[in-house]
């Protein structure tokens, strides 16, 4: 139970620190926790099972739109929306995985299909009036726990931290179970995996389902934090690319590297945005590009690999 204990400790520390942060600090906290959750979810499929997705925005967006539309149109609590979002994300992940992997497509083909599906979803939503079409959906501010809205940013810190914790628990549980070895075997060598009795297609579908469900959990929290969603912000390709970049920079092979990548890159982006005060929009993408190249060149195993090597060297 050691990793679970460590996780509990980290979460407790973060929860204790959050109230003492400035409003801006809490804003960064929420963003890091939410983006970090998406990155961790992405990493289950992309890092642990080795199937690169370019379309995780599909899950985030589906979750955000489902809970928001249910709340606005039918008055259904976002809490129920949250649960339904996870179900929808899991179902979409499984469906996407099944249709692609059953045909023995993987690698770049899988990446392209995920990209295409997310883009299709974006364009469909942009034309459906119930979902606000291209204008998006605004959620009226009615702060209460029942509405998953909070009066202070601190509430959102805890909500985002909760999602992050769920993702971390799932990852640790997978890593310690047979499923962890199934993912490992599939990632490392599919022929060997099959020869060892592992159903490769089934394993990938399960990875996609879990990954999709966790990513979808982020949607409703994000929507209720910003109180506004539109197709670009939750279904746009940027969301998918962010998850991938954070994971690569943090370290693909590791369980929690993607979170480390998020912790470094999200504040950096926000800082840049503040410094440039709205000028040079999109400059953070250039910064991402430069950092990505540097990491690939200097630390192929990501920041996590760099860190664990440094620790190993100090011990030696």
């Amino acid at each position: 139970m050691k990793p679970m204990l460590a996780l509990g400790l980290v979460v407790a520390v973060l929860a204790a620190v959050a109230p003492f942060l400035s409003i801006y600090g809490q804003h960064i906290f929420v963003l890091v926790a939410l983006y970090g959750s998406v990155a961790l979810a992405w990493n289950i499929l992309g890092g642990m099972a080795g199937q690169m997705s370019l379309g995780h925005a599909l899950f985030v967006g589906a979750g955000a739109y489902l809970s928001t539309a249910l709340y606005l149109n039918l008055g259904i609590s976002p809490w129920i929306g949250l649960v339904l979002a996870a179900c929808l994300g899991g179902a979409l992940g499984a469906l996407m995985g099944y249709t692609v992997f059953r045909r023995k497509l993987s690698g770049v083909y899988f990446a392209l299909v995920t990209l295409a599906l997310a883009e299709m979803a974006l364009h469909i939503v942009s034309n459906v009036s119930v979902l606000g079409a291209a204008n998006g959906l605004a959620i009226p501010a009615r702060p209460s726990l029942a509405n998953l809205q909070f009066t202070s940013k601190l509430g959102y810190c805890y909500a985002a931290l909760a999602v992050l914790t769920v993702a971390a628990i799932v990852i640790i549980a997978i890593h310690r179970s047979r499923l962890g070895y199934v993912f490992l075997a599939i990632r490392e060598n599919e022929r060997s995996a099959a020869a060892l009795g592992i159903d490769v297609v089934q394993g990938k579908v399960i990875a996609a389902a879990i990954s999709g469900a966790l990513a979808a959990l982020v949607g409703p929290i994000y929507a209720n934090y910003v109180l506004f969603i539109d197709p670009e912000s939750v279904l746009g390709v940027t969301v998918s690319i962010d998850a991938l970049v954070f994971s690569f920079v943090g370290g693909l092979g590791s369980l929690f590297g993607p979170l480390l990548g998020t912790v470094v890159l999200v504040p950096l982006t926000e800082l840049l945005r503040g410094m440039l005060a709205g000028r040079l929009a999109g400059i953070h993408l250039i910064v991402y590009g430069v950092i990505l190249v540097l990491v690939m060149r200097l630390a192929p195993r990501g920041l996590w690999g760099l860190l664990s090597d440094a620790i190993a060297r100090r011990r030696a």
Partner: protein
Amino acid sequence: MSAPLLQVRNVSRWFGGLRAVDEVSFNLESHEIVGLIGPNGAGKTTLFETISGFIRPTKGAVTFDGRDITGHPPHRLARLGIGRTFQIVQPFRDVSVLENVVAGVLGPNRETSDPRAEAMAVLTRVRLDHRAGVLARNLSLPEKKRLEIARALATRPRLLLLDEVMAGLTPAEIDEIMVILADIRREGIALLIVEHVMRAIMSLSDRLVVMANGRKIAEGLPATVAADPAVIEAYLGRRHHGAA
């Protein structure tokens, strides 16, 4: 009288016009070691891939333990008790030797109380326990071959298909593998071995099946098969009568 453990009946595999395997039949009893030999291009590997589920036969049937397994996917065969190794070793390179074998223990999805202990026991059987913590990529070739065997053994097979586990090894390393294989057979696991190392396959096998040009050309005791004119011709070519 019980049915043979493995029955290969009139199995053919065509690739376009090429008959890589052509109407091959043979049986393999439990506790038996059968060697599958033949010159390069004889169709051994194709037959091997067909039995292990990686290639579907064009015609014919394969039964295991009285059950029709023709065209079953590899993971299902592994769960039924057919393990295999790969000619070109395919370890999970970036994880430890022990983790490789744990994947083999857990792969077939059966009940186990302590997968790591079970994996360690398997490593001891192939004399690789002292390398348990090493990354698989850092093993030497003979060690990788043994890891390949260990991982297959970890699935608890009743039949183990070995594809050239001795290729590229020195005579001393081959002896080591032969001792390990003899141990495995003593545990009651049947073996089907594709191999080019004649010394090893002659002494290990109870029976040999010889293939050439996709067909079975001989079957029997190693000594008998070795003296068979058809086998000699397949390996050495037709003797030129009356030349000089």
